[in-house]
């Protein structure tokens, strides 16, 4: 088992013919992901290796979508996927206007679709499906669910976990933008409901109060062990630390506040990334 996608999920890649799109479509396919087609308007009928390219999502007959389209086309492309009943809809692209991101999320909410991102490395259910740009070789099948606002930091921690024989059920980058689809709370609940996930690793960072809200939620609704790491303890206020969402505004969004909230509900927070595996072992 895994959350959101598995080896049977039929995937369409929107924006499959761009440079990034081609590279990652091939890599996802090579990993064994059930890619049924790519979509690029005006390129329908072409092939990417043995993957057919369509003009519209409708023609691809997929269950879920991953999007590499340019930021300014993200809204219309995501709406197309959602309108066709696809879920999850994984939006890799960064620099999507926040107004468009909000539109997409509301449209998805009304349609009951799961959106991941935008500005996310995507997700992987190791051994089953890769729906993103994460480097698949560092992952291993297992029973830890990972959810993170960061990309490379996730790889760092996954690498430590895999080396320590702590494989993953699904690992998901929820995205580094201020407005994203699946958030910590909805993702934690999915892992809670997944019988093959035994514990969760939640990687947070400065900005907003999603970690604080997740802490409250964990207290009320999550029975499985959760460990955490929060990046940005030394970040100054008022500056965006790379990610659009990683900014301390006034007193809100500090790492201290997040760590405090998590500790208060019994979630251990690693001081350094490489300590995560040990914290997991302590709880399992």
């Amino acid at each position: 088992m895994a959350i959101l996608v598995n080896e049977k999920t039929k995937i369409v890649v929107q924006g499959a013919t761009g440079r990034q799109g081609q590279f990652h479509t091939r890599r996802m396919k090579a990993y064994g992901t059930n890619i049924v087609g790519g979509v690029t308007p005006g390129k329908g009928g072409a092939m990417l290796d043995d993957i057919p390219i369509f003009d519209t999502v409708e023609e691809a007959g997929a269950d879920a979508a991953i999007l590499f389209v340019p930021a300014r086309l993200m809204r219309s492309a995501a709406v197309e996927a959602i309108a066709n009943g696809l879920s999850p809809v994984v939006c890799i692209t960064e620099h999507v206007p926040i107004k468009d991101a909000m539109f997409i999320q509301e449209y998805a909410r009304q349609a009951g679709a799961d959106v991941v991102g935008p500005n996310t490395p995507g997700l992987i259910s190791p051994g089953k499906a890769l729906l993103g740009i994460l480097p698949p070789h560092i992952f291993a099948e297992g029973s830890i669910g990972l959810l993170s606002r960061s990309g490379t930091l996730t790889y760092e921690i996954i690498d430590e976990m895999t080396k320590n024989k702590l494989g993953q059920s699904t690992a998901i980058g929820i995205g580094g933008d201020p407005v994203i689809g699946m958030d910590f709370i909805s993702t934690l609940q999915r892992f809670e409901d997944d019988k093959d996930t035994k514990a969760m690793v939640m990687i947070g960072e400065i900005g907003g109060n999603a970690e604080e809200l997740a802490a409250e939620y964990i207290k009320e609704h999550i029975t499985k062990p959760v460990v955490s790491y929060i990046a940005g303890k030394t970040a100054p206020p008022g500056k965006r630390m790379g990610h659009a969402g990683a900014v301390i505004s006034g007193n809100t969004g500090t790492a201290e506040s997040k760590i405090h909230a998590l500790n208060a509900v019994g979630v251990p927070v690693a001081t350094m990334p490489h300590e995560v595996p040990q914290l997991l072992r302590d709880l399992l």
Partner: protein
Amino acid sequence: MKLLEYEAKDIFVEYGIPTSTGIVIDDVANLKAALYKLGLPVVLKAQVLVGGRGKAGGIKIAKTEEEAMHMAEQILSMEIKGLPVKKLLVCTPSVIEKELYVGFVVDRNKKKMTLLASTEGGVDIEQVAEKTPEKIYKVTIDPIIGLQEHEARNTARKLGYTGEALVSLTSIIDTLGRIMQDKDAELIEINPLAITPEGFEALDAKLIIDDNAMFRHPEFAKDMKETQEFTPIEKAAKEAGLAYVELDGDIGIIGCGAGLVMASLDVVNHYGGAPANFLDIGGGATAENMKKALEIITMKSGLKSIFVNIFGGITKCDEVAKGILEFNPPVPVYVRMMGTNEEEAKRILNEAGYDLYGSMQEAAEAAVKGGK
């Protein structure tokens, strides 16, 4: 992209929000003409993109021409939080009976814009939120439909207004919502929205346009170049397309991916070091990008060592290694690399005599020690 007060006010005026405007000058030589038009007294307001102008002495009232000349000269030669004051807004002071707050901000958790309004204007709204949260009225805006007129009216009513005042305030809130929508604002505020004997008046204006939406707003392209204020290093980073934040310490940091770079700062700090900067070279960086990144962080004086932390997914380690050699940094570099083409990178760097580490904590610790 933040707009200066007068730029935001120009937009307010265009949309019909009653606004205290005035005359913008960038040279004291133009003050006399402004005073001739406006009369005395005048308010002189430094046009800078940081908060706390008032406390820093950037807002003054002048009663005579001499006073005005003196104050204008003073303000136009000051720096506020490191930013030089290049422009001054000269306007006629308003008779203020009461100060309100109206603004739209992003609610990350609801994934929607929120209208905030309060009878406690003129102060930082975050302070009001902390001390008297019951005095802030909130409405969550549907991202598909946008602000509806009755939401603006309900808000005006909740602030206690009726009659003509209710109608005016409804219109101001409704219009502010329209500007938010039309201009892709991620923040728009009138604080204070004053009540004067003539009615409501926007005394200040704050407007941040979503940088990612700039492709829809050619009208801002010119302004941005003119008024965005960056340090020379920030400017160089921006031009190179690198995410850079200047910090107080002396250990330069380069990594790929915002989260990993933040974690790198934290680990350096954990070992007692003080990072000099945040620099994310992003995914898929070339030797050229890496060289440029090193150039940028070494623009800062007093650098003692550099910590390079690469977890190569899309990024190829050998490219990064080549970039380091091309630049040949003036201070010791401590490199941690893993992932794509890791072996080749190690070979290149070892040959050139660089220190390579197997984990980020080891490399960070070495960089801290090496920087002492």
